Structure formats: C-alpha cells, structure tokens
C-alpha cells in the first residue's frame, strides 16, 4: 500500500503534491534539480490560444512573507504547448494538469478542446481569475453565473475532468464554488492569488509596471485555509489546495481543512527542491500524528465521523 496516494477525478497521484501552475514552467528547469517522477502531478503554466508576451517588467515584487506577480500569462500559445512542451513531459510517468486561461469564453473552449486530447494531460484547470474582456475586464471568477457558464462550456468540450481554480478576491467564495459545481466542475483548485500592490517610495509609483499583482506565499495561507474549510463542507467535489505551502506540516493543515491534494507555488522559487523535500518528510509526520493513509486526513478538521480523531 502506498500510504501517500490520493485519488481525484482523472488524477491518480502517488502523493498529494504537485507544483502550482505558473511556478514551475513546463517542468524542464526543475528537471535539472530532481526527478519529476517523484511528483504526484504537475500543473503546467497557463496556456492561452495564442502566444502571449505578458506584462512589461518589473513583474515581481517581494512583500513580507509573500510576493506579488504580474507576469501577464506569458506563454508560447496552444500550438507550441501541444507540439513542444507536452511531448517533452511524456518522458515522465506523471499526470499533467493543464492550466487554461483566456479573455473570452471561446478562448477557454478552444484551448481546452485541444489540450485535453494530449496523451499526458489528465485534467484541465480553468484559471477563472483572468479579466473577462466582454464584461469590461471584471474577472470571470467573481461573478457566479459567468463562472458557471464558462465551466459549462468548457465541460462540454473537455475530454478529461475539469478543475475550476477559484479567485479568492470575492465576497462569497461558497457561492462561486456552488455555482461551478452545479455547472459540472469535477473539482476545485483554491486559491489563486489575492490582489495586492507595493509602492516604491523613491519612484512614488507602484513597483510592478502593471500596478497591482497577485499576492502569493505564506502570507496568504490563512486565507486559503479558511476558504477551503468553508467550501469543502458544502461541495461534493474534491479540492486541490494551495496558497503558501512550504512544509509537510502545511500540507497536513490544508488536507485537514478539506483539500484532497495540494499545489506548491512560490516556495519553488525559495527552494527548487521544496516538492521532493516535502514528499520525503510526509511519512514521518504521518507517523507522528498517528495517521495511516494520508487520505484519512481530508476534511479532518470538520468531518464528524472522521477516522483520524
């Protein structure tokens, strides 16, 4: 028995750890640091229908216990991901979660239709934090019926399960989660970054040339834990948890909150070996906590009949 294994729609993972989208490129760089086959899955960088350059630099800024990014979804575009990036990843026996972004529903649909046919893509992750051009730039993920419509259309064409990645910048995360579940989402990813800004005192202007950016890292962990705790109790689909994870303890905290698997983002920049290190540390921590199989942790902070108490 593999006590670290977790099972989610489309994703049979040897352990609950995957690098988070946008923080691991398409895997090549980190392959110089460790064997990617150690990972439970890999969430690749957001792919859009066309190649994108993204925002002007500076694109990142540090904050206390966090960072801001405004990369602007730079990526080589659907064609190149299909012909270059995904085939390269086939050398590893590890399921790929393909993150999809766009500015209109049709973008998402077109990209998903194709990406979901790739041999090693086992799940689609919809990045609904992108600005919706038809709605004047309001993010898809902040309006329940639009998030639902997007989910429904994408589900119609996807060959693999669809995870919807929720934006935390909302008044009521439960409302959005329920809307996308009802629209057919197979799972949720949460959370994407919080919107933040830093200002350069000397230039008297925001540090990021985009002005604001997405806040990630340990600073946001309590917000992620709270939202996962809330949402996991009211939806029946599994959650991939993320937001500030750095250690095996953090992984357990996310799973107790209600996550079925986790993604590690920013911490890869601090330590390129963070994913294999966390995976290695998990068994000893489970022993210490008296947990046999890691799946027994899921929702342990609220599940009445939880077999871990």
């Amino acid at each position, binding site marked *: 028995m593999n006590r670290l294994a977790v099972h989610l729609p489309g994703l049979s993972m040897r352990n609950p750890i995957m690098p988070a989208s946008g*923080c691991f490129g398409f895997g090549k760089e*980190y392959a110089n640091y460790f064997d990617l086959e150690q990972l439970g899955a890999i969430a690749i960088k957001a792919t859009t229908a066309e190649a994108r350059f*993204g925002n002007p630099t500076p694109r*990142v800024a540090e904050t206390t216990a966090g960072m801001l*990014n405004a990369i602007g979804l730079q990526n080589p*575009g659907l064609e190149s991901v299909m012909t270059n990036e995904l085939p390269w990843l086939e050398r590893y026996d590890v399921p790929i979660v393909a993150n999809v972004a766009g500015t209109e529903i049709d973008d998402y649909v077109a990209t998903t239709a194709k990406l979901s046919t790739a041999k090693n893509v086992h799940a689609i992750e919809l990045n609904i934090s992108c600005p919706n051009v038809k709605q004047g730039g309001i993010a898809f993920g902040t309006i329940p019926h639009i998030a639902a419509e997007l989910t429904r259309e994408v589900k119609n064409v996807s060959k693999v399960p669809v995870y919807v990645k929720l934006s935390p910048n909302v008044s009521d995360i439960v409302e959005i989660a329920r809307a996308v579940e009802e629209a057919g989402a197979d799972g949720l990813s949460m959370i994407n970054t919080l919107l933040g800004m830093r200002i350069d005192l000397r230039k008297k202007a925001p540090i990021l040339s985009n002005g604001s950016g997405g806040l990630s*890292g340990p600073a946001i962990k309590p917000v992620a834990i709270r939202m996962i705790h809330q949402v996991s109790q009211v939806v029946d689909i599994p959650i991939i948890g993320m937001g500030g994870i750095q250690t095996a303890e953090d992984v357990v905290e996310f799973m107790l909150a209600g996550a079925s698997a986790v993604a590690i983002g920013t911490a890869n*920049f*601090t*330590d390129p070996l963070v994913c294999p290190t966390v995976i290695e540390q998990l068994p000893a921590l489970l022993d210490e906590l008296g947990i046999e199989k890691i799946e027994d942790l899921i929702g342990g902070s609220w599940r009445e009949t939880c077999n871990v108490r």
Partner: protein
Amino acid sequence: MNKGLLTITKQRALTSHVMEITCEGPLTKKMTEPGQFLHLRIDATDDLLLRRPISICDVDQKQGQVKMLYRVEGKGTARLAEKLEGMDIDVLGPLGNGFPLEVTKEGETALLIGGGVGVPPLYYLSKQLKAKGVKVIHILGFQSEKDVFYKEEFTELGPTYVSTVDGSHGTKGFVTDVIHHEGLTFDTLYSCGPTPMLQALSTLYPDRRVFLSLEERMGCGIGACFACVCHVVGDETGTSYRKVCTDGPVFPVGEVVL
C-alpha cells in the same frame, strides 16, 4: 544541480554602502565563467521569501573561495551585511550565461566598462582576459568619490579610469565621457551597469563587438517563472523573448530591447 551551502569566511565594508563578502564551499568549483551570478537565500526566515541575485566578482579556485560585492540596498542586502564569519548561505548557482571570453583573441584589446554595482563581475572577467593575453582597459563609473571601490584591484590588471557624476574623483560625468576624453578604442567591449549606461553604449556602438550584462527583478532565477524577460530586437510578433536569468544576464549588443 547547482545548489549548495557556502560558508562565509570574511565580510568587510568597501564604502559606506558596498560590502565585500568572501565565501567558501564545493560549489565554487563550478564558478569558472565570469558574468554569472549566484541566487542567494539570505536567511531561512519566511519574511524574505525571494532569493537575491548577486554577481560573482572573483573566484580563487585554489582556495575554493568566491567573492561578491554588493550594495546595501534594501531588506535583503541589509540582512546579508549582518551575517558573520562562519555562517552558511544557501546558494543556487552559478546561474546564467556570462561574458564570452573566446571572442577576444590574445593580443586584442578589451574595454571593460562598469557602473556602480555593475563593476564587480568585470573583475573576474578582467583577470581571465588578462591571463589569456588580452590587453584590458577599465572604466569604472560612480556617483561620487566616496562610492569608488576596487580601483586599485583593477589598476593592477590594466589601465583604469574612473568617472564620477559629481566630478569628485576622475573624470566628471559618465563613463562615455571617459571614452571620448581619453580616445579609447577596443576590439571587444564588455559592460555591466545601469540600463541608461547600457543604452548609451548600444547607441555608440550598435555594430561593434559589444556584450552587455542586464539586471532585472527575478523570481526563480532558473528560467521557470518568466519574471525577468525582455523583448528581442526586431521581433515583429511581439512574443519573442529572452530570459535575463538563463539566456542572459549577458547579451550581445542589439539582441534584446534595453
């Protein structure tokens, strides 16, 4: 896998704001290419999340030691300056593509131009060029006399000119003023410093053998996060790019948009 610990063996102030740090460890063996950088995790606390990129200034392969010079700029470098001998630093590197030595032949002249904390990587470069029989000339640009460092060290390797913005030391003005003033010529020009300086050199010598080292805010430092990209000159699609961390930090003049 370029990752490991370096142990601090010495740290000293060169000016009121610039520190020299000497470290040792097995990683130094790989540090053979001038112009590459190290990505430092200043300490293990969570409030400094990102690593700091600092150029390799000199390597003593016999002693297994590497020197870096850095300016105390913000939180991270201030904390680095507090570190004591014997402490370890977690390092990724050497990273990036440094200055090409092979383009400059024995007997040719190389002009090395540094501005502020762009000066350090030129030192290791100059030593290697000189060892190879290249004639090296240096121009070092600073704000003011009190900011000048490593003038003697460079002078030992070859003629060294200094410019200061306020004229308190050497030529008043910019490094380009020194070139004109002294009528300096070269076969290869290597430079590192603030973007306006690199832009001025690109404008002066668009078609010469010129190599420029760029600076950009970084996330990963290894090519994965797309924090540090720049546009490619003449790219019509607008989507071509180079990453400063892995394609650079050194680029031939005219390759990327400054």
